[in-house]
């Protein structure tokens, strides 16, 4: 029998029981739509995380002073005094492919304005920091390299710190604050950046020249970290390797001594987060796939009923010359058509539902081609798998018994 005839027989049979067909297909529709929506939400979460990390800068490399391994008590990162501003200058000089670099010295301090006080992170940095972190100004200006060289007592406030010290939305440019016991002149406010992908609120901060933190606040000569951004297309591994070699030489570390610093990139962190969300996506999708499976069982159930109901029809077809394979294909194709039709509608519903989720819940839901293909393919497989048993049952009928079936 030609495939077109087989297909038309299947479609005719399905249309004869329109209501039943629709209800059976509903199982597939819900299953496929659920898979698509789940995968879409997962992808959406993934891309929004990537977006956030990109906003922090994927080409950003952080060098932290390592733990102090000389004494019996090992201290945490940032506690050795071996990392110095000279190291930072050496990196700029000797490692190619670096766009911007800023030494970092941080301290938690009580910051006092005329009207309020607030305990916050005081970040010592160079004038390159806004370029590295893609940070723009809401008001005023950032401090300059000259300010850094002179260890000027100027401060740039993060959004949260400004709100707490001067009130929401105020422009405190020109005002004076005290950090510890020192007066600082506020010269600008940073545009809001929001919560970091991992870690503290990036806006709850006061940024001052690192030299000022060293000399005026902490009285130290070393630094705690170096943050730098690489030029486009320069791989992190290369920079990391060169920085490591350079710093080990400068710190005169013997071959068997561990590094007294660590080099990390946001790119690394991004890949960890991405793989986490991928796992979540698969988890959600496989939960949704269970409903596809249930839909498949619904199809099998209905096909079994259909075979029983149409026993006489099968007997008749056999008597006019249908072979067992013809009967098998007829019912198998019927099941597959049913599941594919359900799958197609499910894809459309999945699209619609993803849109609804995006606009109502405010999540980004991205429907991807492979999610559509996957769930459609899965629907076809479910049709074949669950259609086969009823179809084989139909094909194995004895023509005489089938013709006499009441």
């Amino acid at each position: 029998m030609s495939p077109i005839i087989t297909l038309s027989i299947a479609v005719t049979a399905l249309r004869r029981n329109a209501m039943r067909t629709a209800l059976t297909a509903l199982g597939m529709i819900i299953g496929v739509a659920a898979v698509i929506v789940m995968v879409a939400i997962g992808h959406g979460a993934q891309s929004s995380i990537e977006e956030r990390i990109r906003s922090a800068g994927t080409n950003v490399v952080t060098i932290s002073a390592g733990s102090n391994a000389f004494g019996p008590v090992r201290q945490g990162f940032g506690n050795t005094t071996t990392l110095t501003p000279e190291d930072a200058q050496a990196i700029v000089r000797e490692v190619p492919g670096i766009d911007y670099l800023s030494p970092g010295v941080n301290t938690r301090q009580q910051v006092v304005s005329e009207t309020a006080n607030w305990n916050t992170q005081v970040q010592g940095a160079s004038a390159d920091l806004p370029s590295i972190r893609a940070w723009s100004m809401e008001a005023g200006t950032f401090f300059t390299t000259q300010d850094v060289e002179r260890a000027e007592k100027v401060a740039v406030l993060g959004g949260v710190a400004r709100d707490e010290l001067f009130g929401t939305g105020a422009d405190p440019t020109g005002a004076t604050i005290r950090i510890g016991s020192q007066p600082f002149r506020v010269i600008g406010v940073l545009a809001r950046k929001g919560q970091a992908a991992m870690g503290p609120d990036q806006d709850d901060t006061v940024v001052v020249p690192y030299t000022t933190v060293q000399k005026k606040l902490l009285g130290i000569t070393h630094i705690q970290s170096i943050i730098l951004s690489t030029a486009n297309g320069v791989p992190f591994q290369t920079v990391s390797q060169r920085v490591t070699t350079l710093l080990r030489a400068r710190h005169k570390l013997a071959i068997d001594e561990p590094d007294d610093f660590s080099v990390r990139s946001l790119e690394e962190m991004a890949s960890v987060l991405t793989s986490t969300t991928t796992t979540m996506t698969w988890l959600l999708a496989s939960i949704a796939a269970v409903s596809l499976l249930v839909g498949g069982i619904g199809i099998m159930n209905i096909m079994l009923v259909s075979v029983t109901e149409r026993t006489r029809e099968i007997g008749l077809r056999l008597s006019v010359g249908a072979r067992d394979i013809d009967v098998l294909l007829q019912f198998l194709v019927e099941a597959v058509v049913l599941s594919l039709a359900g799958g197609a509608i499910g894809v459309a519903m999945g699209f619609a539902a993803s849109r609804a989720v995006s606009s109502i819940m405010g999540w980004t839901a991205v429907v991807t081609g492979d999610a559509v293909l996957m769930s459609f393919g899965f629907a076809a497989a479910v049709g074949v798998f669950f259609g086969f048993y009823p179809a084989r049952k139909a094909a194995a009928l004895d023509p005489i018994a089938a013709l006499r079936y009441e």
Partner: protein
Amino acid sequence: MNETPVIAVRDLTKTYAVGEIEVRALRGISLEIPRGQFVALTGPSGSGKSTFMHLAGCLDRPTSGMYVLNGRDVSRLSKRDLSLVRNHEIGFVFQGFNLLPRTSAIENVELPMLYGKPVPAKERRRRAAEALEQVGLGSRLDHHPNQLSGGQQQRVAIARALVNKPSLLLADEPTGNLDSRTSIEVMGIFQRLNAEQGLTIVLVTHEPDIAEYASRIVGFRDGRVRLDRPVQQRREAVDEIQRYDAEGDALSA
């Protein structure tokens, strides 16, 4: 005429296993049916007449013995090959019509042409219309079974049996679900096909007066042939209809 018979069976037996018990439905049948004959198989239920018809129709295979259909031994063919034989050589008419519901008359008649050798859609429709014309339903091609009377439904079934131009028409109690007058009409169609086209017809019936429309009666009992005689005074459907209508008029008068 020295022609090969349509059906030639020798020592045909069929034994069913029903649980532990063996049912010997046929216990050695030898029979020849020449081309162009109209044979009625009669006998009480359980006599083996239906079993014989199923074997003759290649719906089943004999336990032992030989069945030669149109000169070809079909007693040992595979299930697939038997399907082909049914498709090409045999037309079935059943007591319960067995039409596909919610399917037009012409589509029902096209059904046998969907299997076996592919027939183009146009050709299918033409041949189906022709077959329906033959049984007097040329004006009801697109009617569905539930829009047709019992007699009309059976005529659609006959058209379906004829559409592949079989050499043998097998009718299993074709008048069992019909009233007397419609029964006579259906027998009239069989007689006409037999007379005009020389179609070989084997009819299974337990009604003696229906059997008398055939030209030969073969009586079954306990799995054996107990009676095989030509019909002396054959009923002619054309006359019977007139008589039936006259009686009806007499009663109502």
